[in-house]
């Protein structure tokens, strides 16, 4: 996530002075290059975020109301028992998705990066993340076709004589959908970390009599830890803010923060102030998890 050292730094003090002697034009270059994008981000990202901070302090606001900041009522509403359960459920789903992606993704990344023939690695990785290019809505929709009561899964189960499953519109369906959606990201990040694995260490460990599990837990995992941390963080924050999977697969029982926010703006009962407060809480949760990673995680974890 970090930008590499500026390759043009040597020209930074040379270009404007040597070719344009007047000091007034020193600022022309940076202004032309960085001004337009900066202005756009300021107008449509920074200012809007500040506006929802302000709006989150207005209780019961509806479109067209006069803005009059007056307190923390919306935040008290966020933490009332009903809404707090929604937050806890969202966190639980995000943690569950992260663990599932880690558990399923690590063997895949390890196999591609370490065990697969070298010349196939790029192609295998590309093949695994290729479904990311198709519409995320349609990939989630496919799971409705598979998991619904008369769907593919249940017709297979009943053909081979097993009892059918009621999964759709329940929590397991959301976990399946979110893990499916975010597994490629996990594999991508784990792969780039496992690819740099020091094989000499693995061999030394085996030579010195360590069993394969010992080598795995004491040599491989510590080396891959930055990748594990970065991949887990990415999946965690993406699933925390995910709307499509819980909305389409979760039914009424899986209300999450993202769905609750959506309802405050485009749903039946609109409350912009409450929705803004929820968004602020969501942004805060995401920032907090990134800050925790930066503080306690290996600093190289964020460098992809």
């Amino acid at each position: 996530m970090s930008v590499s050292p500026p390759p043009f730094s040597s020209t930074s003090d040379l270009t404007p002075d040597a070719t344009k002697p007047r000091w007034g034009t020193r600022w022309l270059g940076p202004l032309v290059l960085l001004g337009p994008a900066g202005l756009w981000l300021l107008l449509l990202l920074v200012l809007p975020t500040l506006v929802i901070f302000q709006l989150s302090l207005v209780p019961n606001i509806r479109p067209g109301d006069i803005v009059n900041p007056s307190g923390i009522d919306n935040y008290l509403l966020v933490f009332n028992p009903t809404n707090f359960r929604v937050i806890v459920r969202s966190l639980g789903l995000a943690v569950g998705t992260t663990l599932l992606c880690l558990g399923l993704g690590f063997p895949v990344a390890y196999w591609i990066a370490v065990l697969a023939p070298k010349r196939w690695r790029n192609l295998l990785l590309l093949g695994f993340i290729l479904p990311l290019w198709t519409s995320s809505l349609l990939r989630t929709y496919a799971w409705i076709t598979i998991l619904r009561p008369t769907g593919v899964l249940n017709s297979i189960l009943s053909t081979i004589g097993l009892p059918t499953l009621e999964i759709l519109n329940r929590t397991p369906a959301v976990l399946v959908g979110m893990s499916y959606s975010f597994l490629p990201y996990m594999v991508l990040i784990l792969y780039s970390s496992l690819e740099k694995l020091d094989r000499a260490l693995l061999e030394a460990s085996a030579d010195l009599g360590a069993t394969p599990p010992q080598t795995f837990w004491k040599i491989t995992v510590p080396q891959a830890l930055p990748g594990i941390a970065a991949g887990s963080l990415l999946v965690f924050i993406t699933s925390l803010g995910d709307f499509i999977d819980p909305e389409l697969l979760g039914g009424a029982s899986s209300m999450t923060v993202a769905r609750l926010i959506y309802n405050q703006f485009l749903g039946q009962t609109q409350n912009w102030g409450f929705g803004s407060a929820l968004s602020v809480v969501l942004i805060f949760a995401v920032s907090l998890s990134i800050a925790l990673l930066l503080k306690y995680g290996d600093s190289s974890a964020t460098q992809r």
Partner: protein
Amino acid sequence: MTETVRNDRSESPDTPPSPEELPPDMANPSAKPSISWQALFVGAMFAFMYLPIAVLAAYSFNESAYSANWEGFTLQWYERLLTDFRIFSALKNSLIVALTAVVVSAVLGTLMAVGLARYRFPGKKLYLGISYLPLIVPDIAIAVATLVFLAAVGFSLSLWTIVAAHIVFCLAYIAIVVSTRLADLDPNLEEAALDLGATPTQAFAQVLLPQLMPGIVSGCLLAFVLSMDDFLIASFTAGAGATTLPMEIFSRIRTGVKPDINALSAILIVVSGLLAFAAEYLRYRSETGNPK
């Protein structure tokens, strides 16, 4: 795809693995049986990734609209789709949004990447941090913030407000891809052009830009796919009648399974597969074409 996975390395005896790329398990014969077990698991995960896509494609040819059982081959869902006016108008809106946003973002994002690589200035860390925000902040929060802001300044929503909102994340992604490319370039070339009397604008347009082109194009492809895929930000910033393709798909599938959407999925899968192939080909060419 699953077939290449199960391809064991023993099936390619023409290239014996050199010692340093010998897998650690090979040195330890007792671990050998676990290789096939791992390959089997990876094969199953590949199947998991492609299962939903295969299901959508298969059912788009199924006669029965609602049953999971196969009741005969048909093209009726494709016929129905091709006469569906609303899908085409949504597709047109999506293309207008994605193409406009990508073209504007290509300019802004490239300028930004070059500027960030070239200059040091007070507040650069803040600028850099803000440019990463669209990648980190959840879509729903960006969507809410944009809607609330547009309402607060009294800007009426239309197709162009979607474009404005999409430019925010498109330019962030393009800037990152271009920055990566920029870091691999030889800075001496542009300095040489300046030494030889080129104006900064000439050096930029004739030396730097051609070198950056592969990065810009693959960044644009990524941004295009993300823009075409976005549902949340578009539905929050869309004016009346400005329905994009994901919005149209969402409004149909939330009420259940729709066979003509299966047909649409199959078509979109083929198109996005071609796009992915084009992007990877470009990346591959830009990586091998500039060995450094």
